């Protein structure tokens, strides 16, 4: 055999042997037999195969604990109370836990492995979360990197509150071997129970967004899991100060059109700050201006941070946080009804907006957001 081949072949051979041993060991060792998961003091009992994380084990039984990252342990959303002793909190869980949660055995269900019979507590709403079979009815480019995707439910209806999100189930494609899930806020109105609309921005290297932008076609079958999330309009007279960037538009589109349609919370004034870099990144402007014209309590503030002179941009300019700061200080009337902050966008934008809002007297417990990591 050629001496050039000996080296690479040996390395490949050794790697293969190790991989085989690991695969065999995994089959042999990662087998905990049948175990029982008892939920809410025995209200529901599940017979499952042990050895997998709690999150995916429950999902296989059609109980969907919310998770924005799909079980990678980076979002901290899939918290659940584990009553049985499953060992101390792992270092991967601690950054997401308050001392109070640690004391009450709250765990990240994606990090807890089911090895024996365990007892857990879950909010009852979770039982109403379902997996929906849908197909893509329409895909539309709203900007150069954001697509508006409309899914039609194949059967049944979805009941949700404006502001909630669903998880898009991304099947294996190309080099991606495993099915993944990513969370997207619904931009459709809750009154349309047969459709779900999502706004999906292409993230370079993103598994789900690449799939949607490069592979998904009209007519394709797609599964959605939901609805999840506590992000919603709060029943107070306080004015809503909403800030969004990019595909963070989605929950607000649903919220505004729903409020307009139902005229719910008539005391609330609504201020909507939408930030983009150039007019290439701006979308739904016509529709929102139209809404503003016919709906007096809705105020739209669209701002570009880097408009080029040839764009003839007539609206506000500057970073959305600076624009927000300026409006809070000089434009929006300080009524005794107070203000509430509603945010949707990148974690960086959310943190910056929280600082501006706090500086202008909105306390942190009145600022609501979903951070998708």
């Amino acid at each position, binding site marked *: 055999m050629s*001496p050039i081949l*000996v*080296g690479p072949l*040996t*390395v490949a051979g*050794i*790697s293969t042997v*190790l*991989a085989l*041993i*690991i695969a065999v*060991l*995994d089959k042999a*060792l*990662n087998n905990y037999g049948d175990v029982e998961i008892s939920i809410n003091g025995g209200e529901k009992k599940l017979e499952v195969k042990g050895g997998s994380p709690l999150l995916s084990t429950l999902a296989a039984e059609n109980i969907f604990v919310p998770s924005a990252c799909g079980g990678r342990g980076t979002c901290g959303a899939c918290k659940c109370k584990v009553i049985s002793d499953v*060992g*101390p909190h*792992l*270092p*991967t869980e601690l950054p997401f836990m308050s001392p109070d949660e640690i004391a009450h055995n709250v765990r990240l269900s994606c990090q807890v492995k089911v*090895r024996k019979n365990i007892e857990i507590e879950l909010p009852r709403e979770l039982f109403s979360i379902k997996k929906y079979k849908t197909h893509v009815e329409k895909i539309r480019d709203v900007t150069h990197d954001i697509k508006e995707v409309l899914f039609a439910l194949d059967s049944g209806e979805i009941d949700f509150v404006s502001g909630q999100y669903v998880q898009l189930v991304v099947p294996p494609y190309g080099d991606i071997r495993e099915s993944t899930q990513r969370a997207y806020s619904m931009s459709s109105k809750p009154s349309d129970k047969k459709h779900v609309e999502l706004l999906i921005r292409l993230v370079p290297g993103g598994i789900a967004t690449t799939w949607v932008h490069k592979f998904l076609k009209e007519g394709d079958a797609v599964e959605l899991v939901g609805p999840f999330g506590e992000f919603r309009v709060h029943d107070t007279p306080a004015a809503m100060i909403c800030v969004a960037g990019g595909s963070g538009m989605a929950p607000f589109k649903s919220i505004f059109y729903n409020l307009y349609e139902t005229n719910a919370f008539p005391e609330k004034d609504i201020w909507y700050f939408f930030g983009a870099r150039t007019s290439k990144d701006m979308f739904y402007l016509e529709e929102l201006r139209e809404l503003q014209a016919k709906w007096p309590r809705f105020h739209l503030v669209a701002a570009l941070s880097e408009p080029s002179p040839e764009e003839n941009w007539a609206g506000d300019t500057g970073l959305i946080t600076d624009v927000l700061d300026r409006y809070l200080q000089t434009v929006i009337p300080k009524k005794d009804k107070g203000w509430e902050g509603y945010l949707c966008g990148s974690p960086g934008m959310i943190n910056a907006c929280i600082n501006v809002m706090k500086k202008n007297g909105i306390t942190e417990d009145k600022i609501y957001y979903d951070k998708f990591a």
Partner: protein
Amino acid sequence: MIDAPSVGLLSLFLASILTSNVLLANFLGTCSFISISKDFKSSMGLGVAVTLVIGITAAVCWAVLYFIIQPLGIEYLSFIIFIIVIAGVVQMLEMIIDRFSPALYLALGIFLPLITVNCAVLGVILFMQIRKYNFPQAVIFGFGSGAGWWLAIMLLASIRKKLDSNNAIPAGLKGTGITLITIGFMAMAFVGFSGMIAVQ
């Protein structure tokens, strides 16, 4: 087939702990040494894990070296092969511990996978290759070096515990600064053992 050095197993064991301590004489595996030694309990876990991994990988890599690498004459690939073997063994060890001793698994926690990239492991295996140890020597040297690393991190963790409660340390030296100086002193102290036994 191997021209093994004529050194007794007990002397080799003591030498790898004291005179040629992989950490304090060769300064290998310093990165996790400094970051983990902040905490006494974690140091204990990491020490056990490193000892286990070095001991076992030394044995496995010895077999790979003399039954695969040398007969095929591909010594130039030994670095790559050793790293692959270390990664594989660590992965297997993790699965076995996870299954049979969840308590130890939790104690070792994230440290086990981290050891894959600990240069002390690769360093010990390369010494084993250069010094042409036979199989018993390789295993003893592996476990001894691991134990030496464990001893060193426990010593440092204890010292740092005292240092933390000492307010006399100038602000600019607190943390890693004073730790590096401490390691220097410890290394010098270990030089004191060098007259006892020598392995090359």
